[in-house]
């Protein structure tokens, strides 16, 4: 079976006055139909840029400097702009972080959804409208016929995100890239949307890349998880394996800083220091300055090594088989 998406050694660079920002630096992964991949990292780790690279929506002067992105076997890095446009919104859809910002404030919902249908298929406006109504119903919007005539500001944040999701689903895409779509929503709405997205992927075989900084969201949603740090993947594996036996000190730090991992009343764990600036990075492990386990060997960049089949870690000092303990987190 051909993977829905096969990314090999992707490098996305942003030239700047002070040097090249290597926002994504040698990222490789694959995703199968129906699979949900959690892409986790903090701000500036390159997770969103990875998503935009796949869609070919990197803002100039940024560019994909190296690597290959294959969508169902078709190379995207060399595809024509028109071919990318045909795929975007039809076969690969994207959902954005802030539902308040993703819908055009001066256009009605029906305009914004029907144009998406008509951008890819020659259908009448009436037929397109029928499809919009059905899709809105599927994401749980009541009275969609009337709601289509509304403007974005007449909806709550959760409703807008449902509309954005419905827009992404109009063409039943093979791959959805969701860039922190529940971050701006309150927790109950977040739960509903997570549940619905998961159901959708199972039913339709749509592959989903869920980009987030929130491990707890991904834990209940994804099949696999990929942790990014400073443009590189530091750990990847099945969700249960990574959450229960994280090998990379950074992943451990992330899990330790989720509320609930610590006894009540204790200070939450904090990873010391800051994400390094992505300009002119020093050689070696990018996490070494914040890492308690770093030593001289960390001056060389570790490879992403498989400890077990399917569980890769980019660290000279993985934690091994020992399960995560509270003492360890401290």
């Amino acid at each position, binding site marked *: 079976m051909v993977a829905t998406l096969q990314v090999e050694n992707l490098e996305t660079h942003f030239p700047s006055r002070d040097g090249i920002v290597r926002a994504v630096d040698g990222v490789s992964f694959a995703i199968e139909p129906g699979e949900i991949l959690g892409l986790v990292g903090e701000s500036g780790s390159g997770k969103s840029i990875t998503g935009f690279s796949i869609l070919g929506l990197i803002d100039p002067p940024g560019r994909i400097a190296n690597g290959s992105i294959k969508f169902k076997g078709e190379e995207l890095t060399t595809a024509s702009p028109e071919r990318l446009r045909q795929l*975007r*919104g039809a076969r690969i859809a994207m959902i954005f972080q802030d539902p308040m910002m993703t819908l055009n404030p001066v*256009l009605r919902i029906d305009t914004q959804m029907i144009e998406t249908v008509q951008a890819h298929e020659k259908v009448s406006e009436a037929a397109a409208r029928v499809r919009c109504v059905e899709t809105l119903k599927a994401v749980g919007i009541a009275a969609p016929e009337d709601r289509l005539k509304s403007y974005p500001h007449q909806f709550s944040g959760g409703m807008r995100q449902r509309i954005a999701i419905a827009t992404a689903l109009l063409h039943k895409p093979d791959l959805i890239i969701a860039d922190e779509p529940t971050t701006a929503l309150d927790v109950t709405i977040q739960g509903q949307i997570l549940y619905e997205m998961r159901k959708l992927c199972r039913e339709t075989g749509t592959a989903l890349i869920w980009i987030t900084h929130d491990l707890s969201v991904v834990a209940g949603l994804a099949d696999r998880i990929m942790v990014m740090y400073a443009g590189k993947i530091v750990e990847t594996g099945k969700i249960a394996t990574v959450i229960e036996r994280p090998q990379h000190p950074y992943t451990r730090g992330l899990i330790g800083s989720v509320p609930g991992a610590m006894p009540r009343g204790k200070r939450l764990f904090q990873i010391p220091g800051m994400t390094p600036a992505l300009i002119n990075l020093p050689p070696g492990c990018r996490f070494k300055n914040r890492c308690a386990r770093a030593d001289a060997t960390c001056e060389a960049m570790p490879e992403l090594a498989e400890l077990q089949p399917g569980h890769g870690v980019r660290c000279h000092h993985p934690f091994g088989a020992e399960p995560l303990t509270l003492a360890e987190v401290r």
Partner: protein
Amino acid sequence: MLVFIIRRLMQAALVVAVMSVLVFVGIYMIGDPLAILVSPEATELDREAIARSLGLDRPMWEQYLAFVGSALQGDFGKSFVFGQPAIGLILERMPATLELALIATIMSVLIGVPLGLYAGLRHETVAARAIMAGSVLGFSLPNFWVGLMLIMVFAVQLGWLPASGRGPTVDVFGIQLSFLTLAGWKYLALPALTLGLSKCALIVRLARATAREVMLMDFVKFARAKGLSEKRVIGVHILKNIMVPITTVTGLELGTLIAFAVITETIFSWPGMGKLLIDSIVHLDRPVVVAYLIVVVLLLVLISLIVDILYSVLDPRVRLGDAK
């Protein structure tokens, strides 16, 4: 909506009242119209007769009250110079000014928005920089100088276009219009260009600034992620957002164009209200000046009302009832 319009009209009434006092006092202080109207050889008796017939013998506050009284009945007095009703003189010349200002505005929007949009979307290109440099010239060159240069080049050197006057007009429902014939356009082109140039430059800059702001918004990226063509992303998603501020500024500027077409009308001998105003100020023809200013205030209020309504059409988030 109705409340909104009524409130606007009340504001306008207040402005008109304050302004009429100011103009009355102002012109009273500048000089005595009799000195200009009556020939130096006239006898004292003649002077008094004329003063009485024009109502100039009474104290100023009395003159003002008399004016207000008749103005409320729609009579703004007779021109000292022409002896005709002042309001009639103005309305007769208004179409020429309105036509000039409207054409200038339409020209500046049609030229300014595409140029500004281009300069905003491709802001690092040489063409974009050239547009921006041109726009600096556009609003820093003085209006009268631009007018004279255009006359020099197109009327004197090349002889393509007439230098002054309004030329032939077409009568539409009693209103004289130039833009319906090619000959009329020839007379309209230079003054409209002169008048619209600085507005065009302003719109270029505004369109560029808002385009650069809007193009970074998430909804533009989302529109691209939906697979829309670049034409639709720019022509619908970006353009419609840009038009909100453009409409506001254009509307406000249209008002100032009408009010301050004076210079352009003078240079091109365009028979509009502006030229009438200048002549009336020179002759201290108070009824015409006051009537002119009242008409302009009402026009400005009307335009800003239309702009507000248009604004709510363009931007659905704006609800007129909420405007305080």
